């Protein structure tokens, strides 16, 4: 049975959330508590705090700590061509429709260190569409955005990513798109030419473009049902009629009232379309 009296660390977590909001204006109240608690505990432990309460005190008094806290609460974990079948489905079901637009706007929300947005750029390049695309890659973690902009990753990832790329139906070798040097790989500068990286907080910021496609994978899982609903509303308002939304492989939007406006196009790949099928 869920304990009837809140545990001490759960109370501390709520106070931490309030303190971040009051002192720094960052609102984490819409984050799912089970996973948020683990991350706050990890940040506390990394700062030698024995409890979340100790971390709260430090966060309130030391403004310099904020970037590290935000970086610690964000989860910039990703892969190129993560879940290859999703990108195969995108190429087969979505790109042919996007090809009918003279100019294509794509918003990738929660871009982490850029693994997924470079994946998109390659996919579009190979479909012959990239020249017509503008991709907005956004995240609320500035440190991750700066790394995304650089496009440099550990070489140790190369094997998994190359295998993902081939499984997704890639036409060349993924290594054609990077230069390997000193245990790192640097992605081809040309892949960046139509990408704009920007800080955008899904909790606080609003509509900034009209997109034909939005990718937001493995971000909504961190939000409560109420915040998921708000963000889905934001996606609806940012999409053209008939625009596409792609979510993470195990994500479910069944609990969000705003989901009613989306039609499921591919259940496996979690591809949705705004409005009834055109």
């Amino acid at each position, binding site marked *: *049975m869920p304990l009837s009296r809140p545990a001490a660390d759960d109370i501390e977590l709520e106070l931490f959330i309030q303190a971040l909001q009051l002192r720094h204006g960052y609102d984490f109240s819409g984050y799912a*508590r089970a*996973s948020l608690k*683990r991350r706050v505990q990890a940040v506390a432990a990394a700062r030698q705090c024995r409890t979340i309460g100790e971390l709260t005190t430090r966060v309130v008094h030391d403004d310099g700590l904020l970037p590290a806290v935000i970086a610690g609460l964000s*989860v910039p*974990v990703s892969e190129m061509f993560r879940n290859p079948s999703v990108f195969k489905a995108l190429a087969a079901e979505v790109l042919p429709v996007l090809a009918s637009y003279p100019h294509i706007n794509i918003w990738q929300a929660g871009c982490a260190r850029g693994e997924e947005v470079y994946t998109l750029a390659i996919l579009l390049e190979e479909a012959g569409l990239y020249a017509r695309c503008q991709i907005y890659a956004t995240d609320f973690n500035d440190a991750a955005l700066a790394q995304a902009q650089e496009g440099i990753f550990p070489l140790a990832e190369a094997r998994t990513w190359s295998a993902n790329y081939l499984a997704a139906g890639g036409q060349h070798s993924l290594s054609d798109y990077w230069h390997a040097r000193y245990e790192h790989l640097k992605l081809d500068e040309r892949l960046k030419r139509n990408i704009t990286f920007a800080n955008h907080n899904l909790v606080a910021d609003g509509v900034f473009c009209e997109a034909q496609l939005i990718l937001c994978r*493995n971000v909504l899982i961190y939000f409560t049902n109420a915040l998921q609903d708000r963000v889905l509303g934001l996606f609806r308002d940012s999409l053209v009629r008939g625009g596409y939304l792609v979510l993470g492989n*195990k994500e*479910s939007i069944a609990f969000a009232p705003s989901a009613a406006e989306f039609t499921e196009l591919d259940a496996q790949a979690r591809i949705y379309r705004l409005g009834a099928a055109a």
Partner: protein
Amino acid sequence: MPVPSTAVVIGCSTGGLQALSTVLAGLRGDLGAPVIVVCHRGQDDDGALLVELLARASALPVREAGERQPVEAGVVHVAPPGYHLLIDAGGCFMLSADPRVRHVRPSVDVLFEAAADVYGDGLLAVVLTGANDDGADGLAAVRRAGGYALVQEPAEAIAPQMPLAALERAGADAVAGLASLATRINDRCP
């Protein structure tokens, strides 16, 4: 649907399919607690195969644990590949794409710690065969919260490291052979 007050969590790795099949086959068909399973496996697997294989052996229905779905008594819920599985205070599953913990995702430690938070002394945690030390810290958290710790006899496990690590770091309320684990679970559940 009332949130069950008792729950069973099981963690395993190498040799896990075989061990799990034996345990699930021996559970009561009217078990009044949910059974939640983390079993490490290959990356590309979409999870459907493991669910199917376990369903063949199990006395209870086996399903993949669904994001935001309620934890149900009398059902075996299996963690999907590639995500950590947690439980929220309202008794629903929550997934996370957080980094691997001790090189694995889903992690037994993450499930056990989240479940210990929610079920406290109503939790029964089982560590089976595996070639790593995942689950040891989680089992310690379960015991701190008053839960019951059951560990497979390492000598008979296909890979003894996981039960050994659990015993070393957390200890156990009981150590038992595969043949008697199901009975022990049955006896402690409503």
